[in-house]
């Protein structure tokens, strides 16, 4: 993975020194809160409901064991012994003290991590397929490109004061695991006539006005990437609305002007900008790629895996849900669930982080990933090591066999932490996971994505959940709306609202009725919830949600 150069280290040290002075001036009264707020946000520091929150970038979701251990050390030394992994491949600390944040940033810099552009109206942390470099369906590892974009966009003077935040996601695989159609710019590495390039998707996003992105270019030559990104960003920066923050995203531009006009404007900018790129960016990309060389995979028998799978039903259940196909023979991608039933989705204790770092060293070629689904990935594990790995995970409360199942819920922090939230989301996730654990139905139900947001900003991606739950404030009471039929993958779709919302006491029962209805309606065990919904539409599910017709009028 990428290793910082002297330039990178000096840049971070200077940036942290500046912020340390800014914090000192806020505390001694030289800066007002109005003056200080944009400065702290530029360094990922929010003031939330109960405390400050520091959002640390995990670029393209990749960590090495030293970095993971540093995250654990920070959790112990300056926070409450845990961190929260988010849907944008960041980690958030919920309890830092203002005067200690500069020390935290210096500690992060020791391992090449930072909190720059994790907030503010700028290009945010570039996210990538969490199976990058390992997936069997991968055309090319997207992380070198993501790193190039990170270097290009970090402190880019033209893009520090955009109309709104700007999110870029990238995948190098045929199956989209990076939700590229819900990003301001989504990139997919594609091949044409033996050459690699990019499909460029623009104008996706969730939040108040959820939209699926449109393809601006179905094949952009690889060497044209940065000038084309500059063309998109410049078009957005010039044309984007600043009169209304709710209409300031690029998705609104596409909606208001149409994709053809935006494409024409971008192409015009691209022609103007292309000549400014001398090829240095491609040289830099080639250098970055050397850091992402695949590990030396070993050739060994995997009979230990087959034996354990045949003999141990607990291991079999875990292997069947938490492993994915690896490109190298004899290897698997392991997704470690941070969704133990009843736990807070995405939270990891410092002890768990340290164990994951140890296991990555022992079994995983020193690599870790964080997924947008709030789980941790060990991307390269030889199958013969899986029984021992699983035993170690189980001992640490990390052996939950639920990836892709009903309790593998994305949930934003909601009103338990977030100042923007209008209702809680974590307790709803905890209760749903616990309920289905008690019913012992989870594995029978099969693949089902529940995603929960505590406000309209949709950090929990509820719009693209098979079952989406949106928490709102209805006359001073928590109320939860359900959407159905959303999809975050290749056939990205925005879910449809089912009807009136449910109280906090009723939402879990409503989800249970939905799922039981699905079990009755499906044609076979192979027909997933989403497929059943697409076949039958809303009506039978709405009937299950609202068994009395009077409920619909509520």
């Amino acid at each position: 993975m990428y290793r910082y150069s002297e330039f990178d280290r000096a840049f971070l040290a200077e940036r942290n020194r500046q912020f340390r002075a800014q914090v000192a001036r806020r505390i001694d009264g030289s800066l007002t809160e109005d003056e200080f707020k944009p400065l702290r946000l530029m360094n990922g520091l929010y003031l939330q409901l109960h405390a400050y929150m520091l959002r640390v970038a995990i670029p393209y979701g990749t960590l090495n064991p030293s970095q993971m251990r540093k995250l654990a050390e920070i959790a112990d030394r300056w926070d409450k012994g845990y961190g929260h992994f988010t849907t944008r491949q960041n980690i958030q600390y919920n309890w830092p003290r203002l005067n200690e944040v500069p020390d935290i940033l210096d500690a992060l810099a020791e391992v090449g991590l930072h909190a720059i552009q994790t907030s503010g109206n700028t290009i945010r942390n570039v996210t990538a397929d969490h199976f990058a470099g390992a997936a069997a369906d991968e055309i090319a590892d997207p992380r070198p490109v993501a790193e190039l974009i990170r270097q290009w966009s970090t402190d880019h003077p033209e893009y520090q004061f955009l109309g709104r935040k700007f999110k870029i996601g990238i995948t190098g695989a045929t199956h989209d695991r990076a939700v590229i159609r819900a990003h301001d710019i989504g990139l997919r590495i594609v091949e044409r006539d033996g050459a690699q390039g990019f499909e460029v998707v623009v104008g996706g996003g969730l939040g108040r006005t959820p939209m699926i992105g449109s393809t601006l270019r179905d094949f952009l030559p690889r060497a044209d990437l940065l000038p084309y990104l500059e063309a998109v960003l410049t078009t957005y920066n010039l044309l984007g609305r600043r009169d209304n923050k709710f209409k300031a995203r690029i998705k609104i531009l596409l909606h208001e002007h149409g994709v053809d006009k935006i494409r024409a404007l971008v192409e015009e900018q691209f022609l103007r900008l292309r000549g400014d790129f001398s090829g240095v960016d491609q040289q830099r990309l080639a250098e970055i790629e050397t850091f992402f060389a695949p590990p030396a995979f070993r050739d060994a028998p995997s009979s230990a895996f087959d034996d354990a799978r045949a003999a141990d039903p607990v291991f079999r259940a875990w292997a069947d849900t938490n492993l994915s196909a690896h490109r190298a023979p004899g290897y698997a991608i392991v997704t470690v669930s941070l969704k133990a039933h009843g736990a807070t989705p995405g939270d990891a204790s410092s002890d768990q982080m340290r164990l994951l770092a140890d296991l990555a060293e022992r079994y995983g070629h020193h690599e870790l990933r964080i997924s947008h689904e709030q789980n941790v990935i060990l991307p390269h594990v030889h199958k013969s090591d899986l029984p021992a790995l699983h035993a170690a995970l189980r001992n640490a409360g990390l052996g939950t066999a639920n990836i892709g199942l009903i309790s593998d819920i994305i949930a934003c922090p909601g009103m338990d932490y977030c100042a923007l939230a209008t209702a809680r989301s974590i307790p709803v996730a905890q209760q749903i996971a616990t309920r289905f654990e008690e019913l012992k139905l989870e594995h029978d139900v099969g693949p089902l994505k529940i995603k929960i947001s505590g406000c309209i900003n949709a950090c929990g991606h509820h719009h693209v959940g098979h079952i989406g739950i949106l928490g709102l404030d209805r006359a001073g009471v928590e109320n939860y709306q359900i959407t159905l039929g959303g999809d975050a993958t290749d056939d990205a779709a925005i879910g449809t609202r089912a009807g009136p919302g449910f109280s906090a006491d009723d939402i879990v029962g409503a989800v249970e009725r939905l799922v039981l209805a699905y079990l009755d309606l499906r044609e076979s065990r192979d027909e997933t919830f989403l497929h059943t919904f697409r076949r039958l539409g809303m009506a039978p599910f709405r009937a299950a949600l609202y068994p009395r017709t009077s409920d619909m009028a509520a």
Partner: protein
Amino acid sequence: MPRPFTPKVVTASALIEGDVIYLTADDTWSRDLSRAEIITDEAHAQLRLLHAERQANELVGAYLADVAPGAGGPQPTHFREDFRRRGPSNYPHGKQEAV
């Protein structure tokens, strides 16, 4: 016709820790809502808020929050203020840890 004034407390976040704090009748700041001054007069509320806002080196984001007088002191009338008073509800690790 103007809406009747409902009881309030002055609340904010502590500058260094970010903790939820409440203004007491003796001009100190408490982490405990039960010690907060209940304000029943609108003019007095504005004066108390101004008093809080002048302490910008100790706190951030002072505002008036609705409460209802109760036997144990002021009680939140909205669930957001209830969570601010207690801390996160997902597991005991905020203020409720000490309760």
